[in-house]
């Protein structure tokens, strides 16, 4: 059986990748995907620990997370489409009108 550490390590790597993606990339869609990656890294950590401790809490929580992610995608994609319609670009750095 694969030890839980591995899962956790993978989860950490995925999360880091996601976080780096959010921080580094400028394309809104890529950022979006990176966010999904971070969420799923979290999910992976949940299920890994659930297996390890042999409880169901994590499994249930993952479902919530996936539901939230789905809702988030729906809202997020709609926002991106709206932004694209006005700016003809989805480069997040160009969306800096709220700069102080």
């Amino acid at each position, binding site marked *: 059986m694969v030890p839980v550490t591995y899962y956790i390590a993978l989860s950490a790597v995925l999360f880091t990748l996601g*976080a780096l993606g*959010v*921080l*580094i990339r*400028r394309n809104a869609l890529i*950022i979006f995907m990176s966010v999904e990656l971070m969420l799923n890294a979290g999910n992976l950590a949940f299920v890994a620990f659930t297996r390890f401790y042999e409880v169901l809490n994590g499994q249930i929580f993952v479902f919530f997370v996936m539901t939230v992610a789905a809702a988030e995608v729906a809202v997020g994609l709609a926002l991106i489409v709206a932004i694209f319609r006005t700016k003809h670009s989805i480069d*997040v*750095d160009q*969306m*800096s*009108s*709220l*700069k*102080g």
Partner: protein
Amino acid sequence: MESTGLYFNLVPWVVFFPVIGLLANLFITNRMSEKVIGWLASFASGAAFVIAVLLAYSLVQHPEGVVVPLAEWIHIGNLQLDWAFRVDTLSVTMMLVIGGVGTLIHIYAIGYMHEDVRFKNDHGRFRRFFVFMNLFIAMMMILVSGNSFLMLFVGWEGVGLCSFLLIGFWYDKDTLGRDSEANANAAKKAFVTNRIGDFGFLIAAFLMFWYFGSLNFDVIFEKAPELAATMPGVVIAITLFMLLGVTGKSAQLPLFVWLPDAMAGPTPVSALIHAATMVTAGVYLVARSAALYVTVPSAQFIVAIVGAATALLAATIAVGQYDLKKVLAYSTISQLGFMVAGVGMGAFVAGMFHLVTHAFFKALLFLSAGSVILGMERGHHHLAHGKHEQNGHGEEVFDPGDMRNMGNLRRRMPVTFWLYLIGALALAGIFPLAGFWSKDEILADAFKEYPLVYWMLTIAAFFTAFYMGRQIWMVFFGKERHEAAEHAVESPLIITAPLMVLAFLSIFGGALNLPKLHTLTLWLEHTIEFAHPGEFLYGVAGLSFGLALVAILLSWLLYQRQPLKAGQPDPLKRILGSIFTVFERKYWVDEIYWAVFVDRYIDLARFLAQTVDGKFWHDWFHDTVIARSFRSLTHFLANPIDLGFIDAMANGLAEVIKQSSASLRRVQNGFVRSYALSVLLGVILILGYLIFK
């Protein structure tokens, strides 16, 4: 009081009638004719005279007199002063003179002012004149009828006011009718000079109030001997301060200078106020205060000397004057000197006697002089009219009152001449006219106790006869020295009729107090207990009569034997030389007063205005001390306090906010990714804390 059949209660009406007259003329008669106005005022004055006669009639039966209270006046603590009229022989004597002579002068003024306002082209002032005249009668009545020194003072100031108003009656002209401030200045001079005298009167009144606790005549006279015994200095101070008041009002040394200038007033005013009545108020005051004066003989002596010196000085000045009214003015001062000397010596009755006779003959002289001046004006008017048709321009300014323009007027104005002659002889002391008796009574009293005063007065009497002779010769005899004199016109009856009454009184006025009969003495004795019947000294009377005749003869030699021609200097000038100049220039008293007092006063005023007020108060105190210190205070408050502290605090706070917000706003760079990084770092920080705590 058992008043049935007696008229004492009518006494307030001596004041009320003239007041009614003046109010009526003030408010009702402004559209009526001059006759209505003049006769209304004359009747008001005449009614007061009738009251005075009724009072005199009552006094014959009850000579002790009464006090008639009218109203409460001042009640403060122990001081109880009421508005009360004193009816006694002294006050009624004065009332008779004021009412009688005053009424005659009112009637005369109807005719005189009728012409005067026409010569001066201002008919509107006719009514004003009679309002002032009635006011004067009312005030003079208050003066003589008051029962306290304060009430006397009310009248005293009131007649001073009337005098001021009437001297300045033609306030926008000079005596020759030209536009000038000369008359207004004469009025001011009279008023200011009288203020000096009034200051003395007031101090005397304050002293009396302080030491007697009252201003009531009876109270003061009762306590006077007691105070004189314990504190004679106080009584001397009171009487001498009172004398200062007398010198102001009665034009004595050293305050006589206003009276000659007062001739700027219309002639009826000169006659009534500045000869017959107001100026005698000082004599009345001394006679009224007889009880005070007899307690201090040294003060009496000073009063007598002042009177005698004034009599002599003014008589010599009168010799050198050319103006008809100025001669009479100095003569009035001189005669007032006689009266003051008389009452000063304790010869109260003699002084009052001379006051009464003088009121008759000096009013007669002034009014006749007014008639002469009017006659000259008429002559001049006639000439100016004739000339006007020929060449269209009048000649140089004509002075109708200058005796050098007159001459031979007895031909053109015979009635006035005879009246004037009677007045002049009465004044000169010619037997048996009024002036002879009254003047000799004063001289006789002086002869016994005050030889110095006697000789001064005798010399003054000599000069009196001389200047009156000079005047008669210059005005009525000789040759006309001006065309106006050739065309002079006699005055109408309304002017000469009152003069005839006065002439009658001037002739027979001496009968009031003939030697051996002493009617006036017995009459006044009821009021002035120190009155004593004067002796008739044949030597004294003979000397003064002889001197008067010599003086008239001398004046005839100088002025009539070779009548003065136009432009010729006064013959006396050739004989006396520079001494005559001294008389002519009035001893330079006015100039000396200007140099010593008026200029110094102006210097002081200028010093106060420019240095004290201007430089010290305004420039230094206000500008430097107050304004500059206020400015430096505000400067301090504005700059270090407001700008440096309060504003700096507010601005500094704003600056801090501004700086910090400027640096903080860099955080809000608008890049979503940097926000994300912040979130990440924040999470790391929190997690790190949670893990490593």
